């Protein structure tokens, strides 16, 4: 292996570590939110520092590779993709942290009925699934898996779109629970954005492997 290969491998290992860290954060925030577990929520807060530190390290490593090796072609696309994926993953980490803060900030567990009708748990499950899929796509350099992500995001969009009317109805019949309702709406929005971030990661992977740009294109 050349010096460059060694560095590229190291970068790949780091971003995989980032994937796993962020997926863990998302899973934990699901447990914290649905099971109303403050302990786990605090774990997520604590680990957010690790996520941020790793993001900075990966950024610096990408910068070094550009400066020292002037990569071209697929190597260049790889490092560019990693740079962007790094950013996307960091935001997902932020989202997990934000959701966990709701748990710490709320007094009581969320009303089970609210959780069921909003289908927020389904969103968590799908988000974690999408993360796992996109990591697989990256690891095995498989664009087919990457393309499958876009369809899965439709579910998240659908639940998000319905959320407003569902919550509206709920608030009419459960006047006291406005604060919880607002938290749930925020969580739903955040989870929808998670889907978007994962979609971006999938786009970067396809760009890296096929040099195809899928951004801002309506049909996917």
């Amino acid at each position, binding site marked *: 292996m*050349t*010096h*460059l290969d060694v560095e590229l491998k190291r970068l790949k290992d780091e971003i995989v570590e980032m994937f796993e860290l962020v997926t863990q954060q998302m899973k934990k925030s699901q447990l914290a939110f649905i099971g109303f577990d403050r302990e786990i929520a605090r774990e997520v807060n604590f680990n957010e520092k690790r996520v941020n530190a790793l993001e900075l390290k990966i950024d610096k490593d990408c*910068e*070094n590779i550009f*400066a*020292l*090796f*002037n990569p071209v072609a697929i190597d260049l696309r790889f490092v560019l993709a990693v740079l962007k994926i790094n950013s996307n993953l960091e935001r997902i980490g932020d989202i997990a942290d934000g959701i966990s803060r709701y748990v710490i900030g709320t007094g009581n567990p969320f009303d089970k009925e609210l959780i069921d009708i909003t289908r927020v748990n389904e969103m968590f499950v799908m988000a974690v699934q999408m993360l796992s899929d996109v990591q697989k796509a990256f690891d095995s350099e498989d664009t087919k898996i990457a393309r499958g992500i876009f369809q899965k995001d439709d579910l998240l969009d659908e639940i998000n779109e319905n959320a407003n009317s569902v919550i509206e109805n709920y608030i009419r019949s459960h006047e006291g629970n406005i604060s919880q309702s607002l938290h749930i709406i925020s969580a739903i929005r955040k989870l929808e954005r998670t889907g978007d971030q994962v979609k971006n990661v999938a786009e970067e992977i396809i760009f890296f492997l096929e040099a195809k740009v899928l951004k801002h294109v309506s049909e996917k």
Partner: protein
Amino acid sequence: MNKIETKNLNLYYGTFHALKGITMSVKANTVTALIGPSGCGKSTYLRLFNRMNDLIPGVKIEGDVLLDEKDIYNNKGMRIDELRKKVGMVFQKPNPFPKSIFENVAYGLRVNGMNHASFVEERVETSLKQAALWDEVKDKLKKSAFALSGGQQQRLCIARALAIEPSVLLMDEPASALDPISTAKIEDLIYELKNKYTIIIVTHNMQQAGRVSDKTAFFYLGDLIEYNDTNIIFTNPTDPKTQSYVTGRFG
């Protein structure tokens, strides 16, 4: 402990002040690149460490030059040929002797009194393997060194230098006379050799410095302008002259 060090080193070619107060240290098992415009003292500085500057008449040196923390200039106990066994050199233009491939690599051993046949054979093979040339020449060791291509000749010169097992390797633009593929091979070689040797390489090719070195020293008009980790020199150098040079905006 520093492997190689200079303290306030000044060098004069007659009245010309070629190196101005250079203080710099190099740790063992690292690759250090010397970069800078032509004629700024890089090769002169390199040649200090195996005293090849002694061959040039009218050279005057002030200051300390240390190898393994021992002075190599003002030292009665230091013989030059002993020094050159510890500090090897590879030149810009490949310069194999008009001898066979085998005898080229064996030369350093023979002139230093190591003539035992099986020992020499073993060392030649080890060195050619270290220089990533063994597979290409193992069946034609008796053929003339001139029959090899430029890139192969340079690797032969590297094997020749490695045969006497120096601890430091000085390389003066080793790939500048070679085509890109041979250059890449030499760079990979340097990256591998770092595990066993301390390497100082003068290069005009900044990308090369980026690819192979751990630390980089920027020389300009005889001064050491900046000396730092290579990734810092190439992402965020301290001195504006360094930045001008690496971004190609010099002159």
